[in-house]
């Protein structure tokens, strides 16, 4: 043990807590010290680039990428869209990463020491979201620009970064992925179970849009456009179809889901036993 008694220690007048810096630092250590974090980030990055390469390089050979098929609003004849289409897979991986960073605390029991260190709890929710968000934003910016560059290298029709909306789409892909990852942390806090949170994430992003296509054409699209993936995905479209959100309005809807999820997490954690 140390030689100082509690009384002497108090006299040293050390800063009482780590504050915001300490909280973010602690969450950063927790995030970086897990191998799964880096595996998922690397996997998402590689998958995005390779899928983009696959879709752009095979666009000439017909099929949805070659003749303008695909769901309404998504222009699959556009090489830019094709080069970034790997985001569909990356969003699942990054969303699950967000879930795991939170539910891993519950399954391992470290959440007790986390909340013992930060008894107010809400700063942990924001701290984790901030640290993961920053990490995913950097990684997915790299992935999005790499996928764009690879796509541009293998196809003639790729619009330049300076062309109208192109930079917004590339950066928007990274913003979208970041929002989905942070949404994963909120689902983790709310459900505390990996399986439950991943199922809800998967359902929101992948299943509900498919089921939504079975709704009557007269009002179905008005419902499905409010889904987080559909709304946020507007930021990834060069041109938006009528009856859908504009790029930034759509992204704002997705951010709304994230904010509601985080606020609900904070409220839920305040009264819940750990």
């Amino acid at each position, binding site marked *: 043990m140390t030689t100082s008694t509690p009384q002497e220690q108090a006299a040293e007048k050390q800063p009482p807590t*780590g504050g915001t810096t300490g909280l973010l630092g602690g969450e950063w250590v*927790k995030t970086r010290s897990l191998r799964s974090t880096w595996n998922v980030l690397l996997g998402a990055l590689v998958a995005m680039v390779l899928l983009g390469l696959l879709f752009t390089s095979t666009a000439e050979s017909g099929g949805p990428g070659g003749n303008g098929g695909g769901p309404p609003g998504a222009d699959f004849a556009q090489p830019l869209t094709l080069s970034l289409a790997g985001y569909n897979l990356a969003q699942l991986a990054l969303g699950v990463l967000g879930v795991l960073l939170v539910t891993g605390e519950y399954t391992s029991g470290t959440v007790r020491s986390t909340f013992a260190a930060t*008894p107010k709890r809400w700063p942990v929710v924001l701290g984790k979201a901030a640290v993961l968000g920053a990490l995913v934003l950097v990684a997915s910016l790299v992935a999005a620009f790499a996928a764009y560059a690879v796509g541009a290298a293998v196809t003639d029709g790729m619009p330049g970064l300076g062309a109208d909306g192109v930079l917004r789409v590339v950066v928007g892909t990274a913003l979208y992925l970041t929002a989905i990852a942070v949404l994963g942390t909120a689902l983790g806090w709310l459900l505390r179970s990996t399986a439950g949170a991943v199922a809800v994430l998967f359902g929101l992003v992948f299943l509900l849009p498919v089921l939504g296509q079975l709704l009557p054409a007269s009002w179905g699209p008005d419902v499905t456009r409010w889904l987080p993936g559909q709304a946020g995905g507007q930021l990834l479209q060069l041109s938006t179809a009528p009856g859908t959100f504009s790029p930034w309005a759509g992204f704002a809807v997705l951010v709304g889901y994230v904010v509601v999820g985080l606020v609900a997490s904070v409220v839920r954690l305040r009264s819940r036993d750990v």
Partner: protein
Amino acid sequence: MIELRGLTKRYGATTAVDDLTVTVRPGIVTGFLGPNGAGKSTTMRMVLGLDHPTAGTALVNGKRYAEHRDPLRQVGALLEARALHPGRTARAHLQALAATAGLPRQRVETVLDLAGLTSVAGKRVGGFSLGMGQRLGVATALLGDPATVVLDEPVNGLDPDGVLWIRTLARGLAAEGRTVFFSSHLMAEMSVTAEHLVVMGRGRLVADVSTAEFIRRAGGDAVRVRSPRAGELAGLLTGPDVTVESPERGLLLVTGVTAETVGDRAAGAGIALHELAPVQASLEEAFMALTHDDREYRTQEQPS
């Protein structure tokens, strides 16, 4: 200092902790005893602000835990074995908490060394034995050099070396003026580690006494006497508050008088004694007797 005032926790119809009022003082090791399911862990989680009491308050060093601005410097806790992420190294686990609490990095190395974990600090916790996990838990509890230390079943899974280490450590921490609150369901362990005992059964306070007093009560004042003239001796010993049993011919079990009294009366009447011994009821038996009706889980008793 831990002050529990009317602390109550209910889960639906089940009352886990029932109106518990106890003060755990600094400078000594206070043992927290009770059978499994008595409410010890729930009480400790409420002290740490992790569970919210249904009624009453739990104060640590004068405030509710959540009101402390520097909680890890106030209270260090080992709550459950293995509150550790298997994929993280021991050092990273401590570094994350040290960063959050604004503790110097050196503190991590100090507690790793204290727990004897320096050589495995860079290894992932998933590969740790139960005992190593407990040691890391203790290191975590001591990270903030806290004035109050809460240890929930710290000797579980430890080898004899580890048990001795915990015992010495707990006493050392108390000697430094800290409050040490140490739970166990093992009476024998508590009798050598703790100076004071808080005993719980079925969520209620059963005893709040010094260990010496508990042992004295447990020992009772039974005296075992063997004599060829046992029947005659039994007649000499009768009096108020004295009970005499004769489990076999020539043997008496006497309560309510001391061995000295029995010896003197026998000598006065010229009765030869073949055996005269105070009976030490075992602490485990005393503990069992104390919490007999309060154990939530117990084996069906055999009809005799």
